[in-house]
């Protein structure tokens, strides 16, 4: 009897595995003919597709090698990866900021994602990888920018310049030992930064979420050099859930603004502060003229937990984290302002700071100093 069961089990496992197939010719990499990047190779590694009833799950493990065929140094790349763009789980993007790729140089991009699509969709490749944008050293940009990657990559590059400048100033003032100390402080901040389990959903809340809900006001941090200032804001709170943030902002500058991002911090009943997320405002309906006031709002809900338990939201703080002007220029807070507001221990480090920390961990302070001196 037991041997029959074992045979049945083995046959069942084999039947399940038979549904897993390599993705071979089902991933299409689309680079426009005039693209500044060309595809050298695409290794699909262990990418595979598995059928689950009428849906298809695509596990992507793709290693691309791209070539910079432009005359400029590449600082960032964003790829749109889509199995289908409409239903949840069908679309993602992969960005690689903090690059420094010289003309005629190759560089790698990894895609490790899982996507979902209906099994009965029309023919063609199962996954399409499209170039959304390339950012160059002089902040010029190439690409369709469907994901607003121009702004994201410009902001990351500005953060990279800001953070490199900070660490270089330490290197200049206190040498390699001072740089080492600064890296250790940064590592400590990352280790001690309170982490939350955050859930995001769109649309109105239903059921018990609405029970005990009340409207709560934002407190705001104001940066002296910010071109936009928050003037008032509210969100609905119920237990560990905050919904529908709406924040009024005033444009203090003389230029038109097309994008504002408010960073959203919550504090629990013990007074501990956590980074909850960001509230962006953009699109054709958002038009913040010089001196004008406009509203940043999102029909969304954030639910916060920590160590498996809910985080009871006692208060909320917001500050302007990013501004994009109509001419494409971007503003970000400077490092001194973030330090003065005691935000460095709450915010995620910039991609460049992450890269420098990784370099320090793997190769030590001397290699880090050499890297900083390249710029």
């Amino acid at each position, binding site marked *: 009897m037991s041997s029959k069961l074992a045979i049945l089990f083995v046959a069942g496992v084999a039947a399940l595995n038979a549904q897993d197939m390599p993705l071979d010719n089902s991933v299409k990499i689309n680079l426009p003919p005039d693209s500044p990047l060309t595809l050298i190779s695409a290794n699909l590694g262990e990418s595979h597709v598995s059928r689950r009833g009428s849906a298809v799950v695509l596990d992507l493990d793709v290693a691309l090698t791209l070539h910079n065929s432009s005359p400029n140094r590449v600082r960032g790349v964003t790829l749109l990866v889509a199995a289908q763009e409409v239903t949840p789980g069908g679309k993602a993007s992969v960005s690689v900021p903090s690059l420094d790729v010289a003309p005629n140089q190759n560089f790698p991009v990894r895609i490790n994602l899982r996507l979902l699509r209906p099994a009965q969709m029309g023919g063609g490749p199962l996954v399409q990888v499209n170039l959304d944008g390339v950012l160059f050293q002089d902040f010029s940009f190439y690409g369709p920018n469907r994901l607003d990657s121009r702004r994201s990559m410009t902001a990351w590059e500005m953060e990279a310049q800001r953070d490199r400048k900070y660490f270089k100033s330490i290197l200049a003032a206190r040498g390699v030992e001072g740089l080492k100390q600064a890296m250790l402080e940064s590592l400590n901040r990352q280790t001690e930064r309170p982490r939350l389990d955050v859930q995001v959903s769109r649309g109105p809340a239903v059921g018990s979420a609405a029970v005990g809900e009340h409207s709560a006001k934002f407190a705001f941090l104001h940066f002296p050099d910010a071109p936009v200032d928050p003037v008032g804001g509210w969100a609905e709170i119920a237990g560990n859930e905050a919904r529908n943030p709406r924040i009024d902002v005033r444009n203090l500058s003389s230029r038109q603004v097309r994008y504002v991002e408010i960073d*959203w911090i919550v504090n629990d009943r013990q007074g501990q502060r956590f980074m909850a997320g960001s509230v962006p405002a953009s699109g054709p309906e958002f038009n913040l003229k010089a001196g004008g006031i406009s509203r940043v709002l999102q029909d969304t809900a954030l639910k916060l937990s920590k160590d498996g338990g809910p985080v009871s939201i006692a208060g909320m703080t917001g500050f302007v984290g990013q501004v994009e002007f109509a001419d494409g220029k971007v503003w970000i807070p400077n490092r001194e302002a973030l330090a003065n507001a005691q935000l460095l221990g709450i915010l995620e480090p910039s991609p460049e700071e992450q890269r420098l920390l990784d370099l320090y961990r793997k190769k030590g302070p001397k290699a880090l100093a050499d890297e900083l001196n390249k710029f």
Partner: protein
Amino acid sequence: MTHPSQSTLALYAGQDLGWFARWRTQRHVAECRECRIEVRAFGSASEELASLNELPAIAWNRMAAEMKANIRLGLAAGECVRTGPAPFAWLSGARALTACASIIALVATGLLLQRPAPAPPQIATGSAVLRATANGIELNQGGQTLSLLHVPSGNVSYSAGAQGSMRAGYVDSDTGNVTIDNVYVQ
């Protein structure tokens, strides 16, 4: 023939179109086999997502009935093998003890299952939810979960976007490059 866009077909499949767009799409789909297949595919994918990783349903009533039947069978079997009349024989012996224990277990299980528990707060039930965990980003729909992004690195920074996205930033151990993956709730 001009076909409706994929997003229109998806919204139609989910019955989320306005009445006029629905009527217009319905007319097209009734005549276009290709779009009919697409609509069916969107509908079934949505159902499939909800059924992924679904726990098998447990028929508690059926299980309870089977337990009762087994107890009765045990008692009946005891009656069959009994050689002579014995008053209160059902109260003695290992079988009776087992039967009593089973009844107690059944009642205790029933009470446990029926005990009202406070419902945890829920956000936008039925809509897709993105969740950042220590291991990556998950998509949850209809109470069922699918992992969308497994981050191999331990040093990952997550960032939630109130427009319905979740971002993971980490240093890729193979390339040494900072990589930022973004997944979207819709």
